């Protein structure tokens, strides 16, 4: 170790504030270098002065003055109402509740809330890729297809929405008002699509025909056969297949009564 380096370490060496390894290196150097040893003795002398630096004792009146000041403070503090003091006295603050945790907990809650909010926004966002469209088709057609139109769901503005727009489905117990509402919604949704696209979709005439039917007429049907219909959407992975019971009316027009997927 060089003298210059030892000189820098001497202020810490005199009180053993260095690591054991450096203490040893400085000690070895001091044994060999008289100049550095002289400097060490100078530091040791001033350090001894600092160590033995005495402070005066406090005077006798000090205790009385402080004690009286404390009693005055005690009286004043008892008169003051402090919400924090009240909470501190009446509430047991748990051990883990420190200023750090007081900061961490709201930040963690905020992160969770933001994450939840982002997740909900993402899941309810319009379909942005084929995978999500395919999944939504499956879910919608299997589970909620009969209710799509009546719920007035805002559909994505792309060609895939063709497959979602289905003719209204009527049952024998469907009342007239419901039929009318479903038909109006269906018509509104279908019209712009029919103008743009020539896909083989169920026609308005079919739905219109059903609307005009009376439940009593439907009950009186004599013949019935199951018809399989298939619909190809623009997504090659999405095929819509439905079965309808085709009943032959008096004038021979087939009627789609019930659709299942």
């Amino acid at each position: 170790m060089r003298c210059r380096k030892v000189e820098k370490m001497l202020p810490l060496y005199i009180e053993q504030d260095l690591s054991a390894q450096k203490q040893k290196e400085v000690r070895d150097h001091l044994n060999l270098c008289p100049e550095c040893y002289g400097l060490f003795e100078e530091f040791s002398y001033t350090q001894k002065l600092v160590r033995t630096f005495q402070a005066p004792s406090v005077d006798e009146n000090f205790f009385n003055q402080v004690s009286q000041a404390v009693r005055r403070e005690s009286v004043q503090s008892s008169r003051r109402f402090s919400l924090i003091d009240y909470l501190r006295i009446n509430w047991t603050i748990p051990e883990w509740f420190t200023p750090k945790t007081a900061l961490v907990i709201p930040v963690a809650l905020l992160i969770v809330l933001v994450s939840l909010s982002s997740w909900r926004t993402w899941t309810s966002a319009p379909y942005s890729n084929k995978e999500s469209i395919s999944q939504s088709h499956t879910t919608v057609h299997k589970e909620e297809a009969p209710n799509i139109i009546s719920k007035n769901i805002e559909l994505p503005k792309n060609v895939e929405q063709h497959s979602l727009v289905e003719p209204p489905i009527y049952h024998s117990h469907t009342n007239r008002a419901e039929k009318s509402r479903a038909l109006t919604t269906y018509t509104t949704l279908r019209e712009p699509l029919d103008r743009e696209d020539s896909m083989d979709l169920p026609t308005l005439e079919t739905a219109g025909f059903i609307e005009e039917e009376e439940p009593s007429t439907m009950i009186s049907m004599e013949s019935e056969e199951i018809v399989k219909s298939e619909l190809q959407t623009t997504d090659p992975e999405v095929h819509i297949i439905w079965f309808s019971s085709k009943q032959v009316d008096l004038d021979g027009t087939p009627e789609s009564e019930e659709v299942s997927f």
Partner: protein
Amino acid sequence: MMSNVAEIVLTIDNLNLDPHSVDNTSQSITHLIKLAQAGDLTAFDQLIILYQNRVFATAWRLLGDKEDARDASQEVFLRVFKYLATFKTDKDFSAWLYRIIINACRDQVRKRGSKERMVSIDSDRDIETLDSLVSHEDLEASIIKSQEQMMVLRALKTLSEKERAAIVLRDMEGLSTSEVAEILGSSQSTVRSQICSARIKIKEFCDYLFATQNKAGKR
């Protein structure tokens, strides 16, 4: 409650322990603190008696002025009384007390202003205070001692506030570097750096004074 306080004080008096070495009576002191936390003013008086010299000495070393040290010490005990309810008895009371002393002295310096601090270096009050420390049995030794004390006091005043706090706690109060770091809220390496710088400044100041005295002696 009074009898409890009396027993504790009696125990401490019998042991004749300096507050620096109250490890054996830490339980008694903890008990005193708990009583004071519960509002027992007599117990708090006993805490004042136990710690007043230590608080005043540290304040005097930090401030270098007896009146300022007295005011700061009184402020320290008032703050202790005010915030004692927040102190957890499983923590180190001395470290907590030192932190309050450091803050109170810092506020005292700001209250008086740094200019006045520099003026008071050679004030008569300092000399009077230091004279009271030495016995007059051996006059020559007393004079030397007084001069050395004066030299250290003046050397301390050349340090920055942080250096002074570090050197007082480490070299005069005898705390470890880690304890000083915890009290000052700094890292150990920062404290080591401040201590190193302070020791160099003290040595240089002493060298300068010795050189000046030698020149004056030759004339």
